C-alpha cells in the first residue's frame, strides 16, 4: 500500500515536471519570438487564416470519427479513405473532363455542385460498403477486432484506388472564379479559404441541427446511448448505424471537395495523414462530441500553422516547420493531461471508456 502511494507520487511528479516544461518552453519561445518579431502583422494573419482553413478540413473529417465512435465505440481508421475515394473519383470522371471542355469556368457553381454531389455519393457508397462487409459481421466481437479490421480496410481502399487510378499525383483543375483574394475587414484572404471556412460552418451547423433536432437524429443518439434499449423502443439500430456512416462519409466527401479547391492536388495516399490528424482532433475535442470534433479540428489546425513560428522560432530551433506535428501532438498530450476526456468531452461511463 505504501509503495503504491509512493509510485503515484512519483508519477504525479513526472507529469507535473512535464507539464511545466512544456508550458515554460512555450511561453519562453513565444516571448523570444515576439521580442525578435520576425513577422509582419500581415504574415501573422495569413498564417492564422491558413490554420483556420486547414483546421476546418480536420473538423469535417473528425466528425466521421466522432460519430462512429459515439455509436459503435470503434475507431474507424478507414475514414481517411472515405475522404480520398470520393474526391479522387469525382476529379477523374467529373472535374477534369469538365475543366477540359471549359464548362467548369463558365458555370462554376453548377460544376462544383455536381462535383460535390458525386464526391459525397462515392464516399458514402464506400463507407457503407465497408460497414456492411467489414464491420457489421464483427458487431459483437471484442473492441480490438473491428479496430484492426478498420486498419486493414484502410490499406485495402488505398491500394484499391491506386490500382484503379494510378499512383501519380493528379491535379484538380483551377477554377478561374476562385483564384485570387478578397478583402474582408481589411484582411486579404484567398477566396478558396473563404469558401472552406463558410462551407464548414454551414455543414457543421446543419449536422448539429440534424442530429439534435430531427427524429432520425434522435434515433442515432438513442443508438449511441444504449443499443439494447433503443432496439426495445422500436428503433432500427442497424439503420441508425448505416445513417451514422452516411453522415460521417458525407462530411468527409465535402472535406474532400474543399481540400481539392484549396490544394488543387490529389493522390491515392492523401487520406492517410488528414485521417490521422482528424482522429487526433476528435480525441482532442472529446471523442463522441460533435462540437468537440469541430473545436478540436480548429485548435489543431491553428496550432500547427502558428505554432512553429510562434513557439519554436524564438527558441532558435532550425527548420521549425518540420516540427509542426510535434507541436500538434504535444498540444494533444498537454490537453489530455489536464482534461483526459478532451476539451468538450463528457467524462465517459465505464462502459464507453
Amino acid at each position, binding site marked *: 500500500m505504501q509503495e503504491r502511494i509512493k509510485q503515484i507520487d512519483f508519477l504525479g511528479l513526472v507529469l507535473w515536471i512535464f507539464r511545466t516544461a512544456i508550458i515554460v518552453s512555450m511561453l519562453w519561445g513565444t516571448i523570444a519570438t515576439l521580442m525578435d518579431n*520576425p*513577422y*509582419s502583422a*500581415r*504574415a501573422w494573419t*495569413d*498564417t492564422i487564416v*491558413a*490554420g483556420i*482553413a*486547414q483546421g476546418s478540413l480536420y473538423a469535417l473529417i473528425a466528425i466521421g470519427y466522432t460519430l462512429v465512435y459515439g455509436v459503435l465505440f470503434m475507431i474507424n481508421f478507414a475514414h481517411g479513405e472515405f475522404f480520398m475515394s470520393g474526391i479522387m473519383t469525382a476529379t477523374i470522371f467529373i472535374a477534369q473532363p469538365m475543366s477540359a471542355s471549359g464548362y467548369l469556368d463558365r458555370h462554376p457553381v453548377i460544376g462544383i455542385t455536381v462535383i460535390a454531389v458525386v464526391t459525397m455519393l462515392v464516399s458514402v457508397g464506400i463507407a457503407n460498403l465497408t460497414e456492411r462487409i467489414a464491420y457489421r459481421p464483427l458487431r459483437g466481437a471484442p473492441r480490438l477486432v473491428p479496430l484492426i479490421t478498420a486498419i486493414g480496410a484502410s490499406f485495402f481502399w488505398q*491500394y484499391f484506388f*491506386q490500382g484503379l487510378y494510378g*499512383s*501519380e*499525383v*493528379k*491535379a484538380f483543375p*483551377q477554377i478561374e472564379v476562385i483564384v485570387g483574394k478578397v478583402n474582408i475587414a481589411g484582411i*486579404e484572404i*484567398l477566396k478558396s479559404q473563404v469558401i472552406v471556412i463558410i462551407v464548414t460552418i454551414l455543414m457543421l451547423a446543419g449536422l448539429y441541427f440534424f442530429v439534435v433536432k430531427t427524429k432520425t437524429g434522435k434515433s442515432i443518439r438513442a443508438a449511441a446511448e444504449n443499443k439494447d434499449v433503443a432496439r426495445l423502443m422500436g428503433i432500427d439500430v442497424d439503420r441508425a448505424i448505416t445513417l451514422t456512416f452516411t453522415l460521417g462519409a458525407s462530411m468527409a466527401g465535402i472535406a474532400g471537395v474543399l*481540400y481539392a479547391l484549396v*490544394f*488543387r*492536388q490529389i*493522390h491515392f*495516399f*492523401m487520406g*492517410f*495523414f*488528414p485521417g490521422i490528424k482528424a482522429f487526433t482532433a476528435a480525441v482532442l475535442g472529446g471523442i463522441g462530441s460533435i462540437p468537440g470534433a469541430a473545436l478540436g479540428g480548429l485548435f489543431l489546425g491553428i496550432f*500547427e*500553422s*502558428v505554432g*512553429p*513560428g510562434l513557439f519554436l*522560432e524564438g527558441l532558435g530551433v*532550425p*527548420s*521549425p*516547420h*518540420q516540427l*509542426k*506535428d510535434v507541436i500538434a501532438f504535444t498540444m494533444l498530450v498537454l490537453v489530455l493531461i489536464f482534461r483526459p476526456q478532451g476539451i468538450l468531452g463528457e467524462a465517459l461511463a465505464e462502459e464507453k471508456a
Partner: protein
Amino acid sequence: MSKRLLAIFAMLLVASMVLAACGGGAAPAEEAPMEEAPAEEAPAEEAPAEEAPAMFECTDEIGCVTYYADEPIRIASALVVSGPNTDLGMDSQRGVELAMEFKGDVLGHAVELQAEDDGCSAEGGQAAGQKIVSDPTIIGIIGTSCSGAGVPMSKIMSDAGYVMVSPSNTSPALTDADSAWNPGYYRTAHNDKVQGKAMAEFAIDVLGVTSAAAIHDGDPYTEGLARVFADNFEALGGTIVEFTAVNKGDTDMRPVLTAVAAAGPPELIYYPVFTAEGGFLTKQAKEVAGLEETILSAADGMISPAAVEAVGEAGEGMYFSGPDLGFENELYTTFLEKHTEVYGIDPTSVFHSHAFDAANMILGCVEEVGVVDGEDLHVGRQAMRDCLDATSGFDGITGTLTCNEYGDCADPQITVSQLTAGEYEPIWP
C-alpha cells in the same frame, strides 16, 4: 501414455530434420558462409556432403553463391513500389526487368528477380535489407530508390557480404567514407554534390540572383541536395536567407512559405523535394504575399509527367536541375521501343536508364567472375565487389561508367531545364 507420445513426437522431429537435410542438398547453398550470417550454416554444412562430387572449392573471402543445374541466378531489387513515390520506383523496376530481358541467360542460367519495396524510408530500407540478406541465393541488389532507405540498407547488405547498385540514390552521404558509405555499395545515379553545385552556378551566373532560400523535406536526398546548393550558392557570393524544411505528407505549405517571405523575400527558392510536396509548394508559393515574383526551382525528384500535372499553371517557367536525359545512343532508342512494347507506356520518371545500367553491371560481373563447374555455377561475393570496383569504361545508356573507390560510378551530366507549356526544355549548359 504421455511418454509414448513424447517418443513419437521426438521421432517425427528427427525424421523431419533428416528430410530437411536431404532437401538442403537441392536448394542452392552457400559453401562458405560468412560470419555475419550464422543462420545459413546449417544447410551449407550438409549440402557438400550430399553432393559429394563437388570439385569446386570456394576461395572467396566472404563466400560463394552456388547455383546448381537449372537453378536461376537470383538478383533482388529494393525500389519504392508503394506509397506516394511509386512512380519513381516502378520506373526503375521496369528498367531492371528490361535489362534482364535484353540479357537473357547468363552462363547458361536464367535470371530471376526478387522484387522488394524500399518504402522510400529508413524503416522500409531496413525491412527490405533484412529480408534480402536472409536469402543466401541472392547475388546482387538493385536499389534503393530513395537515399533515405539506402542508408540503413547499405549497412545491412555490406555486413552480409552482398553488393548493391543504386539507380537513384543521389545523396552525397552514401559515397562518403566518413558518413554512410559501406563496402559493396555502388550507384549509377549522379552524386548530388554535382547537381547542387550546378544549380548554384546556374542561379548566380545565368539567372543573376543574389539571394535564395532552400527547402527540403528531411529526407537525406532532399536535405543533402539543398545543403550542397546552399553551400555553393554562398561560396559563389550569394546569400541564403532561409534554409528550412517541411515534412513528407504536408499539404499546407503557407506557414513555411510565409516564414521564407518574412526572412527575405529571396529572389529564388530551391526545393529539391518530391512531386506531392513540390506541387503544394509551387502552387502555394504563388499565393503567399511577397513571393509572387520569386523564381521557383526544384530538382530531379520532380521531373516526371506527374510533377508537370501537380505543379499545373503555377509551375510554368519554373527551373529544374537533373541528370541530362538526352541520351543519344542506339541502346536508349531500343530501350524505349521495348519499354513501350512491354508496358504500353512511356517511362514515368527519370531513373529507368540508370536502373537498366545497374542491372547490367551486376549481371555483367556475374558473367565475368562466375565459375562454371559442369552444370553448376559458383559466384564469389568478394569477386563481385572486386569486379564492380574495377568497372571502367562500361558502356551504358547513361554514358560511360567508371566506378571510383567509394562506388560513384555515374557519368554525371547535369542539366537545368525550364518548364515551358508542360515540357521540360533543357536550357543550360
